[in-house]
């Protein structure tokens, strides 16, 4: 087993009040995270990247449901486990960090209390040992004077510090997989760079695999080995990071790359993808990107392209290939 995580044909839908039909947010997604690798999952708001990761955690909202598919953690299908078994896996074998560390930490409990509790919940350490481990973790993620910081409340720390605490908590049990959902989006650039470096160091040192969910192509280029690009609930392209940035094939990926301001000198118009993401309840018949695609033909509007290998494991969902 070379993959720590394997998602196969995942379909996730949501009910919304007053409607019979469920909205399909993730439509047949397959992806894998190799052991010790960092895999990026990229896409814009509403493409299904966060829903995919929440399905892995088993943390979908009440109106959400996995309709079909498999989520294998080191070969074991998480969807076949009981709630209790999944709870044990969360935090122990898979951890997740979120965009806004303030809302993920309890504002009325000290940092020390929260990190220590998280460790005790997932191990049989006694209080003193868990506390020592907590201090060790805070130190590892670069929090100065960790012993003193243990007594602080979340609001007494800066955003960057809070995200370090979350990472420290997430890494405390040396999980096999860390899912990071936009972990640096709310942070300043100088702090973002520190957090990215920290994540890479931890991954190199401890062998934790990382699934990095982001909309930021800069972050992907900086950190990831492989990338999946999602659009409207589906994977549209997959390649190793160098191939993707050198020769991306899908018109959507190309559009995303071209609309980055860095590539365009001042005065020239930025490339932009016309239109907006389709509504979950009104998906186009054929290729889901066709209404926004400058190369779309009639064929694209009537038939849906499959995700196919265009060479050396580079996958692309487009008739043009």
């Amino acid at each position, binding site marked *: 087993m070379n993959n720590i995580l394997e998602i196969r044909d995942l379909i996730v839908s949501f009910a919304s009040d007053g409607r019979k039909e469920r909205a399909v947010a993730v439509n047949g997604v397959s992806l894998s995270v190799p052991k010790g690798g960092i895999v990026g999952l990229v896409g814009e708001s509403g493409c299904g990247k966060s829903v995919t990761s929440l399905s892995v955690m088993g943390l979908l909202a009440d109106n959400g449901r996995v309709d079909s598919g498999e989520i294998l953690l080191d070969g074991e299908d998480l969807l076949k486990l009981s709630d209790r078994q999944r709870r044990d896996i969360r935090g122990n074998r898979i951890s997740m960090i979120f965009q806004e560390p303030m809302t993920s930490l309890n504002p009325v409990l000290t940092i020390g209390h929260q990190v220590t509790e998280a460790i005790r919940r997932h191990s049989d350490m006694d209080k003193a040992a868990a506390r020592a481990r907590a201090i060790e973790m805070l130190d590892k993620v670069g929090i100065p004077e960790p012993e003193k910081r243990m007594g602080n409340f979340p609001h007494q720390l800066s955003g960057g510090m809070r995200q370090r605490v979350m990472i420290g908590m997430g890494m405390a049990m040396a999980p096999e997989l860390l899912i990071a959902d936009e972990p640096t989006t709310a942070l300043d650039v100088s702090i973002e*760079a520190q957090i990215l470096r920290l994540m890479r160091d931890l991954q190199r040192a401890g062998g934790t695999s990382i699934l990095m969910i982001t909309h930021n192509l800069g972050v992907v280029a900086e950190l990831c080995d492989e990338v999946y690009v999602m659009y409207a609930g589906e994977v549209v392209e997959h390649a190793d990071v160098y191939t993707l940035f050198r020769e991306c094939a899908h018109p959507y990926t190309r559009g995303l790359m071209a609309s980055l*301001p860095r590539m365009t000198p001042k005065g020239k118009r930025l490339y932009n993808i016309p239109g907006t993401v389709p509504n979950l309840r009104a998906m186009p018949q054929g290729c889901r990107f066709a209404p926004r695609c400058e190369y779309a033909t009639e064929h694209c509007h009537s038939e849906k392209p499959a995700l196919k290998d265009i060479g050396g494991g580079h996958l692309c969902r487009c008739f043009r290939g």
Partner: protein
Amino acid sequence: MAELLRAERLVKEFPVKRGTVHAVSGVSFTIAKGETLGLVGESGCGKSTLGRLLLNLLEPTSGAVWFKGQDLSELKGREQRELRRGMQMIFQDPYASLDPRMSVGSLIMEPLNAHRVGNRREREEQVRGLMEQVGIRPEFFGRYPHQFSGGQRQRIGIARALALNPELVICDEPVSALDVSIQAQILNLLADLQKARGLTYLFISHDLNVVRYLSDRVMVMFLGQICELSPTEALYENPRHPYTKFLLEAVPQPDPTLRDAERVLLTGEVASPLNPPPGCRFHSRCPWADAICREKQPDLVEMAPGHLCACHHPMVDREIF
């Protein structure tokens, strides 16, 4: 180019329980008619406060803002309102800045009503014209903000800001809440409007790539002070202030071949504007700080034509990393 706006030794302090927040400390600069001045800096550097001071939404503790040759603080009531019509603002969050209970048409018309422009029919005519200019179909006059996507809402915010035909528009992080493909649409729209209407922009952003694309000159702030102000390319190609250099180094670039380049990252936290240190405000994070930096505040001096820098040891033609 003719001067449109001048800030003179602007200071804004907020007294709080534990001391004084020095949000803006003696900032002077000018904006020429028709140019785009980019303003970058990290959270808490005072860039948003500065934007609000320029618009007189906040009253400065000391210093003055001159707009079209008139001192804003000298004017009272009606005269001040008249002058301020010429400067408007576009906000970051298109979800929070539009009243959800007002139709799009009435939102855009509100400033026209407030300034009693024309009669009802003329105003409606004008609103439809504005909607067309920003790319919102005039038929949507009676729709509500929640019926629009984030990008469309930002267009509505732009139409509202343009209703009174301003000369200066202060854009406070106008694209940071938007997806990449939508961000490019809005940046292009801002460029088109500038051309069509001869607008002048102060473009506040933490995204250095976006600022580079859009600005003629760029101003970098750190803890309430300008540390560097320069024509755009000179700043990016040849930064003089260590802080600017660090900021540029920290931005994750969408190019994986650059990832292993030796980058020097800023250590430590963004310092607090609450009771900032004496001397150069950057000294506690600057690797080259010495005795003079800890004692004396550096002046903003011209290092090359139009290139200003406030540093005792500016980086002049030397390899430092």
